């Protein structure tokens, strides 16, 4: 079992009580895998412990990216939230830590043997 970190990088930020996490594929093959497997439902289930609402996924193929909007995930956000991460700064790293089972050919395409 690997984590998303193996094939992607990410960026998260806040919008009020909501946040977004953008996930960027490191290669075109990785984008195809993300597009097929990293669904809104999967991301929503993953972030459920943080109280996220219905997750919306936007595809950004020209950037090799998927953008996830995570409503209500910051428990009030900004000045209201009591959490140490009221601004969603950790959510990119949290999503990259998602365990995934990746096909061997995808992993070898990322780290070609000389």
């Amino acid at each position: 079992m690997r984590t998303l970190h193996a094939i992607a990088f990410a960026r998260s930020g806040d919008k009020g009580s909501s946040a977004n996490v953008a996930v960027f594929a490191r290669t075109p093959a990785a984008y195809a895998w993300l597009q097929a497997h990293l669904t809104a439902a999967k991301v929503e289930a993953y972030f459920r412990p943080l109280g996220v609402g219905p997750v919306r996924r936007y595809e950004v193929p020209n950037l090799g990216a998927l953008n996830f909007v995570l409503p209500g995930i910051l428990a009030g956000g900004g000045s209201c939230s009591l959490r140490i991460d009221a601004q969603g700064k950790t959510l990119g790293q949290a999503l990259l830590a998602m365990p995934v089972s990746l096909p061997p050919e995808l992993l070898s395409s990322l780290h070609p043997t000389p």
Partner: protein
Amino acid sequence: MSSLAGFWQRGGRTRIVTNAGGLDPLACGTAVRAVLARANLPEMKVAVVTGDDVLAWVRTHAADCRNLETDASLDTVLPRLVTANAYLESAPIVAALQAGAHIVITGRVADPSLTVGPARAHFGWGAEDYDRLAGATVAGHLLECGTQSCGGFSTDWLDLAGTHDIGFPVAEIAADGSFVLTKPAGTGGAVTIQTVKEQLLYEIGDPGAYLSPDVTVSFLGLQLSTDGEDRVRVTGAAGRPPPESYKVSATYRHGFKAHGMLTIYGAQAVEKARRAGHGVLQRLTGAGCVYRETLVECLGTGASAGGLGQRVPESDLIETVLRISVAADTEEPVRRFTRAVAPLVTSGPQGVTGYATGRPKVLPVFGYWPCLVSRAAAQPQWSFA
């Protein structure tokens, strides 16, 4: 501003556009004029953009100001309303620059409009040159967050050179609205396709409809290419008319909160921390304190993200930082909490430490109320300070 006086005294010509005015841009303008007078630069013209303050309008149209997140009517918080500011567009900045302002200070203006303004003033773009405005808006979006386009806050931060001195981004905008993002020579970090991609989708909703008061932008046709070391060219921004309303950020008083932290080291550190934290809250509520919300977090367990990505069983951790938080509608129970954390040093488990920073502070909470208002609610204008 004082730190730039020498630059201008030596003939520097760089002009400044900044939303540094906060809730009182006119006072900021007056203060800047005073600095320039002391620096013997009286010929520099300071302009102030106002009109973003829509508090009076919002007070009289509260029922129309529905919260964009909850759809609640502003009537519910009207007596506690503190501020209401519209995100203004680039037009008053353009006018001030074209009238010869060297420094433009604004209150609330959409961040990318701070970049669109100078580009419009320089190239003479009209308010309906949507693709060009879109390009400059994307540039402004990349410039708005410190060094974040240059490797700050990036996933592969450890791979960057010079992270102690990351450069701030610079956008070289062309007449067609495309631009090259770069950074000053000799600074750390990097401008690569990866760093630019990350910042492009920072705090973004629908990448096909990035809303600003100048233009609605689609990011879906953006193309990034390398244009030399630490230079990334961005083309393909597509624009269409902006929303008909202004977005407003309003705030209201929402009680008080405090956070207290202590470190617990040793065997079963997390279990001890949890019991100690909940014990503080139990004692206070038992004494009659009423909180609308409390939270106990054990940092080190993945608590920053609700335990996601946790790699080590809690029982294996040799230490944790205990963070206890409370919020209440009134100040008194929060004030009592701030005095209840330190006693854990003598009544908590062996290995409690890290109480060097003193008592927690009582913080006022300001609730955030995003809403839309008619363009008639705000009168964007500018004047020389």
